[in-house]
């Protein structure tokens, strides 16, 4: 029969003390919510926001699809609770220059717009830098074809008055969805939400989509409400053709209710305004932040891992959490549930005030290390650095440090190591051992 071979040495790494201090990158709705919840638990929070105001992407929103309140009022309330909270410190115009160390010993160098640099030593870091958009291509000609945030603004400005655009009354509006970002449901949510408001103002509204994505909480109900109010929905296969007529804009689609393709007729929707969703794009600054923080960026410049083994808000590094738009463009309700998940994770991490590694950890035998940086490059969790701490080394020359003679060698931080053994297998000098 078969037998199992297993050998593993044991070691008990020392516990690591954790102070209740957290750094949050990004002062959007997610960053602020995490800050408020953690501050209530007595955690010292620093929010590093690159802009001069808090609020982030939600500043362009005015209506919630699933809450009665006005977004701006709700956010204003949130900002004023933050300001009244002694445990929260907001740095504006902030940029993270460096992040050294590991869980419990992070050293963050933040520069603010006034040229000041300060070093923070948070126990955990939360990344909530949101996502960015750029105008969709179809909007480039500028006339009668606008983005959903501009529509949001028009709606907020007109409130109880009839809708106008550049001084002209707007009677008919067509939304075109899924031209870009076919996999993101924000545009569906936005379109249905705005369509309901437009119907209440007495406008004629049509929504043209490849697929309506109603998988966010409450959207199906909203969709039904929109249909009851008389919003027209059309499905398309081939992208609609948009053309300008004398005093309007026309959207042509082929009628998909007819099954045989040859028999389909073209339906043309003549509107005053066409709304197209903006394109979500990778934020170069977020990618730069990933480099500084040694985080892995997922596909398409967002931070979400495709790996199902990973809990939603976890990053590849222990003590660094991700939430909100930076993971994936998502609606506020979902972003907020991620914010709450992060709060729970951070609370669980900081609860005892110490972190004791529970998994196997790797350890470098300093005399054997050739300082080749192989393990440093390959560790997927950025748990290895090179330091001067060895008392002997067979490969390299010693160096002085504070009067002592110390040799450089790679060092695995037990708090950050996940115990995969990748470094052990790759080390050409066989200097690393995995301890159970």
């Amino acid at each position, binding site marked *: *029969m*078969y*037998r*199992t*071979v*297993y050998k593993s040495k044991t070691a008990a790494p020392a516990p690591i003390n954790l102070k209740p201090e957290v750094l949050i990158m990004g002062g959007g709705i997610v960053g602020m919510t995490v800050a408020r919840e953690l501050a209530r638990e007595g955690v010292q929070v620093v929010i590093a926001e690159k802009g001069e105001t808090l609020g982030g992407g939600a500043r362009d929103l005015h209506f919630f699809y699933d809450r009665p309140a006005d977004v701006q009022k709700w956010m204003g309330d949130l900002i004023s609770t933050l300001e009244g909270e002694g445990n929260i410190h907001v740095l504006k115009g902030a940029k993270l220059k460096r992040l050294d160390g590991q869980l419990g010993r992070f050293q963050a160098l933040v520069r603010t717009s006034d040229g000041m640099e300060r070093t923070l030593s948070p126990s955990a870091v939360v990344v909530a830098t949101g996502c960015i958009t750029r105008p969709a291509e179809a909007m480039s000609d500028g006339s009668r074809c606008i983005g959903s945030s501009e529509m949001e603004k028009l709606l907020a400005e007109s409130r109880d008055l009839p809708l106008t655009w550049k001084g002209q009354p707007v009677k008919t509006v067509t939304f075109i969805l899924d031209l870009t970002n076919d996999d993101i449901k924000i545009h569906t949510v936005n379109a249905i939400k705005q369509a309901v408001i437009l119907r209440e103002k007495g406008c004629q509204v049509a929504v043209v989509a490849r697929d309506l994505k109603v998988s966010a909480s409450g959207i199906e109900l909203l969709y039904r409400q929109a249909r009851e109010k008389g919003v027209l929905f059309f499905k398309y296969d081939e992208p609609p053709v948009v053309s300008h007529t004398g005093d309007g804009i026309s959207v042509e689609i082929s009628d998909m209710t007819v099954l045989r393709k040859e028999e389909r007729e073209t339906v043309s929707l003549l509107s005053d305004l066409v709304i197209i969703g903006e394109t979500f794009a990778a934020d170069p600054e977020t990618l730069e932040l990933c480099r500084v923080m040694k985080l*892995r960026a997922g596909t398409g410049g967002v931070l979400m*891992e*495709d*790996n*199902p*083994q990973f809990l939603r808000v976890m990053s*590849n590094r222990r003590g660094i959490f991700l939430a909100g738009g930076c993971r994936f463009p998502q609606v506020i309700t979902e972003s907020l549930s991620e914010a709450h998940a992060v709060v729970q994770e951070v609370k669980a991490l900081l609860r005892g005030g110490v972190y004791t590694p529970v998994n*196997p950890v790797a350890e470098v035998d300093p005399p054997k290390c050739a300082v080749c940086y192989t393990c440093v490059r*390959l560790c*997927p*969790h950025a748990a290895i650095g090179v330091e001067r701490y060895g008392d002997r080394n067979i490969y390299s020359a010693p160096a002085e440090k504070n009067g002592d003679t110390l040799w450089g060698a790679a060092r695995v931080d037990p708090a950050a190591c*996940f*115990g*995969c*053994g*990748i470094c*052990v*297998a*790759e080390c050409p000098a066989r200097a690393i051992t*995995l301890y159970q």
Partner: protein
Amino acid sequence: MSTFEPKIVAFCCEQSGLPALEMAKTLKLKMPDNLELVPVPCSGRIETLYLLKALESGADGVVVFACYEENCQYLQGNVRLKSRVGYAKQIMTKIGLEGERLEIFHVATNSGVKFSEFLMQKADQLRLLGPNLGKIA
């Protein structure tokens, strides 16, 4: 030749291969007679040398049970493994060993049946291939 029972060394990732093995055991599925199992925390822990050493010291075939790609608990372990297996195969070709003697098999935790089927197939394949001529033992 009829009595030749190939020896298989199977490295099992603790995240997928090992639970699959447990499942195969619970279901009392068939396993090759001459099998040695080596649990590893992650398939990324397996060195090129381990694979070659196993062949050198008596294995007729080496199998690595790893997680599916993009499914590694440690993000990149199975990707590192893939490149090492590729390298080991290059060396094997150079010294005249058949590439079939070394293979990665991706399993999920619940793939007990696949686990046993694959090993049984491997044993059949190795039986046809004959003993590993590279072993020193």
